[in-house]
């Protein structure tokens, strides 16, 4: 791929905004606001794809941006908001780690993500796209942190969407030449996984009367 020097100026601000939305997704206690922050992050991701498509003249990315818009800006947020409406719970249970230390953890994970993105000998990553690798790692790590420290099953589902955004960004930068069917297959799987998590959340709420996954502890290992 021929990467124009101006690509960096297009992609960097969008990627920086993605990190900002990541904070919002992880730290906002209101589930509906978290879902809106996710929608904003997905829009930024679409913006990154469109930026690469236009500036680097890479037509593959028009397809990537269209499928990402459809799945991540429309379908997934709609599913999350539907589940929130169904369980009638707007606010998540207090997470394991309080807000201030949690922001510290977020910052540490972002630093590790960017360090990895800079140091690993990743292929394809031209200077203009190198920042995407850092953002991809940071989003994935923050998503894993969120899924393991948050009690609400719906928040855990949103965190999985967050991880998925990180993986999607990485795939776009690294494996953009893969056939469209591969990308569609992976996206379909991701949507099914999120739909399944949200569906199970509604059933869990119905059966145990709470979304707190830590209350699911009757099985002992």
């Amino acid at each position, binding site marked *: 791929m021929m990467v124009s020097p101006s690509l960096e100026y297009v992609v960097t601000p969008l990627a920086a905004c993605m990190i900002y939305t990541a904070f919002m997704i992880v730290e906002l206690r209101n589930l509906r606001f978290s879902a809106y922050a996710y929608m904003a992050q997905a829009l930024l991701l679409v913006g990154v794809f469109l930026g690469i498509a236009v500036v680097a003249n890479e037509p593959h990315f028009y397809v990537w941006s269209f499928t990402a818009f459809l799945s991540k800006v429309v379908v997934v947020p709609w599913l999350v908001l539907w589940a929130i409406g169904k369980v009638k719970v707007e606010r998540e249970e207090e997470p394991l780690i309080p807000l201030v230390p949690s922001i510290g953890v977020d910052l540490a994970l972002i630093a590790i993500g960017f360090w990895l993105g800079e140091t*690993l*000998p*990743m*292929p*394809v990553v031209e200077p203009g796209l190198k920042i995407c690798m850092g953002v991809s790692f940071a989003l*994935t790590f923050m998503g*894993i942190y969120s*899924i393991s420290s948050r009690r609400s*099953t719906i928040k*855990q589902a949103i965190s*999985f969407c967050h*991880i*998925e955004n990180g*993986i999607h960004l*990485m*795939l776009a930068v*690294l*494996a953009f*030449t*893969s*056939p469209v069917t*591969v990308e569609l*297959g*992976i996206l*379909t*799987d991701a949507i*099914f*996984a999120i739909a*399944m*998590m949200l569906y*199970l959340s509604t*059933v*869990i709420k119905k*059966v*145990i009367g709470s979304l707190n*996954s830590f209350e*699911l*502890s*009757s*099985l002992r*290992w």
Partner: protein
Amino acid sequence: MLSLIATLYVPLAIFLTSVTVYLMGFNRTTKYLMTAVYFCVFGWSVFAFILAWRGVKISSFHSELLLDPLSAIFIFATSLIMLVSLLYSYDYMKEYVRIHRIPERNLRTYYSLLTLTMFTLYMVAVSNNSFLMWAFVEATTMITVLLVCFGKYEQTLEAAWKYLVLCVVGLGSALYGTALIYSYIFNVTGDPYRGLLFTYLASDIRVLAPTVAALGIITILIGYGVKAGLVPMHWWLPDAYSEAPSPVSAVLSSVVTGCGFFAIFRWALALTPAIHEMVKPFLLAVGMASIFLGGLSIVRQVDLKRMLAYSSVENMGIIALGICFPPLGLAVAIMHLFNHSLIKASAFLAVGNLEYRYGRRGELHGVISDLPVLGALLLMSVLALEGTPPFSMFFSVLGTAMVIDKGWILALYAIGLLVSFVALITRFMEVSWGRRMGKEIVINEKCPSIMIWAPILLLATTLVLGLYVGPLMDLCWRCVGVG
């Protein structure tokens, strides 16, 4: 024509059966349809096994789909276990929905999902495209999650939630590794298909930079290792196995977990000796940890299904250990996965029979006095599981020991096996031969004969393959390019 049957008509028939069952509901017609389709798929798998044994390879759709010795072994195990589980389900699920007060109309969802599981497993087996295979492995998780929580009570939901979250996050890691390796190979070769198809990977993986190769392969191993239930990514496994209906436990513990290892085998077959040496310490560590933790965890379990689940963790460790010593170790690992699938499915179905009769899975003893056939069957399954001759597992357990090239690894392997053998056999001897239970705890006087014959059929297959081990061994050697 053969290539279209292998890669299009058979999976399409399975998929359409699943849709038909869902649309028409579970009734006499769909029951016969499912039984006929499952029998046909099993018949086809035997034919595919023979074709692969005779050295025939079938590919189609620009080599995106492939039937080779490895896929033939996996398809044979899958179709046999799915067929037996289906036949077993007819009576077992009737009782299951009655006990858990599930509307009978929900059975259409159960059978439809069971058939869809077979479809995704079949597609995993014939996928030659690394991304496609990943997508189907992920799909098996999502479908079986719904089967695990078919009962929809607190414990099944807990098990399903753990299973879903751990596996989807873990498999994300495998996707990372796959994309990394693909993009690197594409950049060097300039061909978008070369890093994608396993048939090319074996020659193209040499171009990878060592750090990228190690990072890519280890993330892939972690990802598929979660699905395979390797320590420390095994937390979901005992809960999912124990809470699912028994025929689902049989499928989960054998071929669904096995598809994680199937993916690892596909990657392992493509690795160069240098890359293999880099990932060997990782595999060795998780393999040994799985053997020991699996064996030791059996001791404190009361629930028979949880004991078998931890035995699965131990056996996954044995397979991981085998992969460390290619090419023969890899062949032995493939054989062990096959043997374990059949025997573990048989053991879970045998426990399901006890559950059917006594309404519980724990605090059972002296079963053999009441139910000589069921008690003996359970004990035989457990003995087979621990590698006792003449069952085929004996050869893969022994084979793993023979390929290990260092004394200390062999010593640890032997100790690990001994721990698990003592733990499992002691517990199951008590269940079979202990003090006789009172008649008052029996909830069903008689198990339907098909539920008894189902595990016997699986066990008999491993017995035959143990007595006549040649074809299976040949095919496993052929998978790794030896023989």
